[in-house]
């Protein structure tokens, strides 16, 4: 793997909530245009870790971080990093679909508008492209003025993905994107992730090991704030090196 293939790298990342340490010395390398899955039992630090990548932990009081997260050759934890620019380049899709209580159109146009796009034609184009890329255009193309909250849960989550794409990020973080969805909606999101990896670098946190096996190229196993094992997904699932990885994957705990 050459340096030009690396999108994000964390080095000795430690994180504390107050006095409780949630991440311990996590070093991980995320490849460009690949899907990296983070698995592990609840409370293992996987969600905390992806929230470090777009600095969402900034919002949490008493959160302290040491170590580096390198993106575009810079440590994003440095004070003078512009989080607005960072979050524009590193989008995030959340566990529970969280469309804004406005129209489908305005949801997608929200990002481009705050970043300065005002021209109607340009916005129309972004809305259409983003919805097509999120495999939602066929269902909502004719009802763009309808409230986003009238859509089903699965549609809402794809809308949130489209909303993220509209900002034209390089990386998309998925924080358990299917945990609130039914199996059919889940399958559609997984198909979508497989499509999106051609254009984006994707990191997905998931509780569902089959999902990790289906969608990801690389998998990292987290336990109690530590990254236990990281490698090709096939290797992690078929020949795990660490005993605890094997125990988790074979369903002995978690």
């Amino acid at each position, binding site marked *: 793997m050459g340096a030009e293939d690396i999108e994000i790298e964390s080095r000795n990342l430690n994180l504390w909530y107050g006095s409780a340490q949630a991440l311990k010395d996590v070093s991980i390398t995320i490849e460009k245009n690949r899907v990296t899955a983070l698995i592990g039992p609840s409370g293992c630090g996987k969600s905390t870790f992806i929230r470090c990548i777009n600095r*969402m932990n900034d919002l949490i*009081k008493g959160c302290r971080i040491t170590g580096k997260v390198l993106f575009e050759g810079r440590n994003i934890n440095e004070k003078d990093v512009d989080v607005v620019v960072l*979050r524009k380049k590193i989008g995030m899709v*959340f566990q529970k679909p*969280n469309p804004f209580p406005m129209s489908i159109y305005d949801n997608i146009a929200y*990002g481009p508008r*705050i*970043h300065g796009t005002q021209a109607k034609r340009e916005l129309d184009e972004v809305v259409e492209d983003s919805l097509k890329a999120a495999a939602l255009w066929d269902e909502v193309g004719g009802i763009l003025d309808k409230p986003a909250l009238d859509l089903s849960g699965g549609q809402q989550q794809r809308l949130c993905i489209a*909303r993220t794409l509209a*900002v034209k990020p390089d990386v998309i973080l998925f924080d358990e994107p299917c945990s609130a969805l039914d199996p059919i909606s889940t399958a559609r999101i997984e198909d979508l992730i497989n499509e999106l990896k051609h254009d984006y670098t994707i990191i997905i946190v998931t509780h569902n090991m089959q999902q990790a096996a289906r969608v990801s190229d690389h998998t990292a196993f987290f336990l109690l704030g530590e990254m236990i094992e990281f490698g090709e997904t096939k290797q992690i699932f078929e020949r795990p090196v660490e005993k605890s990885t094997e125990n988790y994957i074979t369903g002995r705990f978690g």
Partner: protein
Amino acid sequence: MNAVVRGRIFTPDTADRAAGLLLWASAAATVLILVYIIGTIAYRGIGVIDISFILDSPRMSGAEGGIFPAITGTLCLVAVAILTAGPVGVGAAVYLTEYAPDNAVTHIITFGVECLAGIPSIVIGLFGYAFLVVYLGFGFSILSGGLALMFMILPWTVRASEEAIKTVPGDLKEGSLALGATKWQTIRQVVIPNALPGITTGVILGTGKAIGETAVIMYTAGSSLLLPESIFEPVRALPYHLYILASEGISDEMAYGSAAVLLGMVLTINLTAVTIQRYFQARSGLRH
């Protein structure tokens, strides 16, 4: 106390029934008091109320004619109070909920808001007189009276706005921030629009409070019975007009008529607030 006798007379069953009866009586008394007040005012006031009572100016100090200038005065005062308390209150609430660090200064501000709510209205009236009328030179005017009323309803506006802002789901805020929105963009486009129903209800209820307020405006707004031509002119608010009619023995009939109109205005405002709240609750209920 004799336990045996007590046991015989107050069995748990009788106690239960007695409690039920007492609680029912308390609730009934509350409603009765309200009905009695509204009934008396309406019964004694309704006779003088007609179109000319609403739209005419008073003659002979209010013994005859209508109450149009007093209604106008009240509406002007309340308008100034809302237009100033609204933005300031929402601003303070946004600061307290979204920006203020969790420290001693913030606690003092929050405590200060509570204290402001507890200041007797006559004291605010005197302060308004000293500060607005005399020191700032606004004189007896709509401006002085409206601002004094603003001091009065500001804490309620802040509180209602704070509560409304706290109900905006955190995941909506995160969604906005994750798209690269700044804190202010998130507040302006996601937080405030979603808190608006609650804020509106709070401000309207504040209006209901302000509209009946007498002590605050008698030292600040003046008691002119002429129609005002600008906010720098004095007015007589409806409750103050009512007070003068009754206390100076000008006309009981007219006083009750004014009271009925005032009551009607307050009830309308409260009903509006409840309707708005219901409307938004029903709407959000459908969508979540």
